[in-house]
């Protein structure tokens, strides 16, 4: 592996690239530092998504963020998938490639969800072996994100932050710290989010994610469909201080508003870069009590029916 995680650049403040914003970006060339794409949306694209991406990649730094590597699955790695991933990377030259510490299915099936891994010595050994295989194949470090989780397995014996730390020590992979996911998972699984962030290997955190969620009273769903809440901004402030600042990106995937609204939400991050001031994270009240879906599909499925020319 030629490149080291510690050599990856700080890209500044970026946004997730979504189809709803294609025209705005091409027309106005907004002052965003970088864009993150969902790798699977472009790996096989020979149509407009890829055409637009090629234009945007000429003007902005791009990072590839995947949802289907399934590094935490007990199934073997899918080398057909990795081959397509690498081909896209060769073509658009992303600053790095990331995915999630999760599994999406076993026995060759795909749930299309980011499922939680059991956190113990057995899974650590299997996952670190697979990370090394991926890094060797891609010839670059793999960056892995902490997912939002809604359960803890009885068989888990290692806290997630410790698991990530061990994973990094064994493979020198990078971490994508999703601050909102830490908050969501800590509420759902009853752990201390500050202890989590304090315990991470900060020097390997390459990127951070911010997003909104939905609080349903007894659990929180990671919906990416609303502004970032104050407790998450507070955690971001802590993570910013501990990492010394790193590439930060806002995800907005459901009920996607106009580009300028997303951009304004991203720029709020500047207000939280001057140090962590609190010793605990404020609690949040319930917002809604409706059934929602984590990881909405809006950003993974093109709205083809609305893309016809008049005919």
């Amino acid at each position, binding site marked *: 592996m030629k490149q080291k995680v510690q050599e990856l650049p700080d890209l500044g403040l970026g946004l997730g690239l979504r189809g709803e914003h294609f025209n705005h970006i091409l027309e106005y060339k907004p002052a965003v530092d970088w864009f993150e794409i969902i790798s*699977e949306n472009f*790996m*096989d*694209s*020979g*149509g*407009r*998504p*890829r*055409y637009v991406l090629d234009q945007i990649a000429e003007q902005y730094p791009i990072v590839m963020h995947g949802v*289907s590597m399934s590094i935490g*699955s*007990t199934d073997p790695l*899918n080398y057909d998938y990795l081959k397509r991933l690498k081909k896209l990377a060769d073509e658009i030259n992303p600053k790095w490639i990331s995915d999630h510490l999760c*599994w999406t*299915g*076993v*026995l*060759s*099936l*795909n*749930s*299309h*969800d980011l*499922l939680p891994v*059991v956190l*113990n010595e*057995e*899974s650590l050994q*299997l996952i670190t072996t697979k990370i090394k295989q991926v890094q060797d194949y891609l010839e670059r470090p793999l960056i892995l994100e902490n997912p939002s989780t*809604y*359960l*803890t*397995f*009885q*068989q*888990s014996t290692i806290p997630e932050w410790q698991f990530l730390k061990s994973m990094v020590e064994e493979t020198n992979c990078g971490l994508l710290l999703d601050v909102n996911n830490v908050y969501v998972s800590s509420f*759902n*699984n*009853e752990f201390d989010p500050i202890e989590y962030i304090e315990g991470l290997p900060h020097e390997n955190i390459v990127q951070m994610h911010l997003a909104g969620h939905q609080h349903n009273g*007894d*659990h929180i*769903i990671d919906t990416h469909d609303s502004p970032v809440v104050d407790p998450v901004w507070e955690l971001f402030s802590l993570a910013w201080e501990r990492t010394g600042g790193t590439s930060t990106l806002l995800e907005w995937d459901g009920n996607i508003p106009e580009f300028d609204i997303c951009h304004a939400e991203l720029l709020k991050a500047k207000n939280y870069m001057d140090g962590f001031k609190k010793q605990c994270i404020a609690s949040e009240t319930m917002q809604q009590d409706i*059934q929602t*879906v*984590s*990881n*909405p*599909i809006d950003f*993974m*499925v*093109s*709205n*083809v*029916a*609305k*893309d*016809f*020319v008049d*005919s």
Partner: protein
Amino acid sequence: MKISKDASRKAAEKSFSEIQQWMQHQLLHPQFAGDYEAFVKSTSKLSAKEHMRIYQRSYIARLRDCMVAQFPALSHALGRQLFLQFADLYLLEYPSKSYTLGDLGQHFGAFLEETRPDKDAEVKESWPDFMIELANFEFLVNISFDEKADENYQKATAETKEEALQLVPVFHLLKHNFPISEYYKEAVNDRNPELPFAQESYCVLLRRDYRLGLFEIYPIQYHFLAKLKETQSIAQAKQFLINQFKVVGDELENHWQQWKTKWLEEGFFVKR
């Protein structure tokens, strides 16, 4: 909630692989009660079952959303509730094996054919035929939107010589037993179309400048374009109509000039 020492020991013995197969089974078959406590920890707010239920709910809701996004006209035709019932059964029969949600509906048309209610009846009803045609058409629309093709072409104009006219790379010529194209356009534009009667129809689904276009055509135009697609020769396509349909040469030339003008505007042709 506390679990007994024996249950705790049994839980600890579950391998990584067993845990994942158990969870996946719970997602795909939520109707079967699982031994939740053996795998999932309860918290002060939710039981093990309630924690698992969040994933079960999201799994089917996400894939249902995707099916509706891939088959909006069929969803309208069947009505949302019935469509979702079909979608649920389809997802059980054909769970996704692809890394992309783009492939999710690829077997839906075949599934509807396999499970049509009059499958074994001698006299078939017509509405399942319509639903199957519509499903296959809608999946083709999804494929066409993003299929790989050489888009580095020069647009043909009225001045382009006939020998240099070539069909645009993404060009699907379709014949249906129902007015599929018309129904599709009405449904996705929220014009609430009625279920149609059987009626042969012909259309062109094409992509130009990375945008899809859908155009109804006449049967004679379908045969002309089919021959043109096969031979890439307008002269041969004209000759085919003269030979097969006994069209008079002068009459055909008049029609062709009108077709050419319209099809150039609609982006059927690029310059060879």
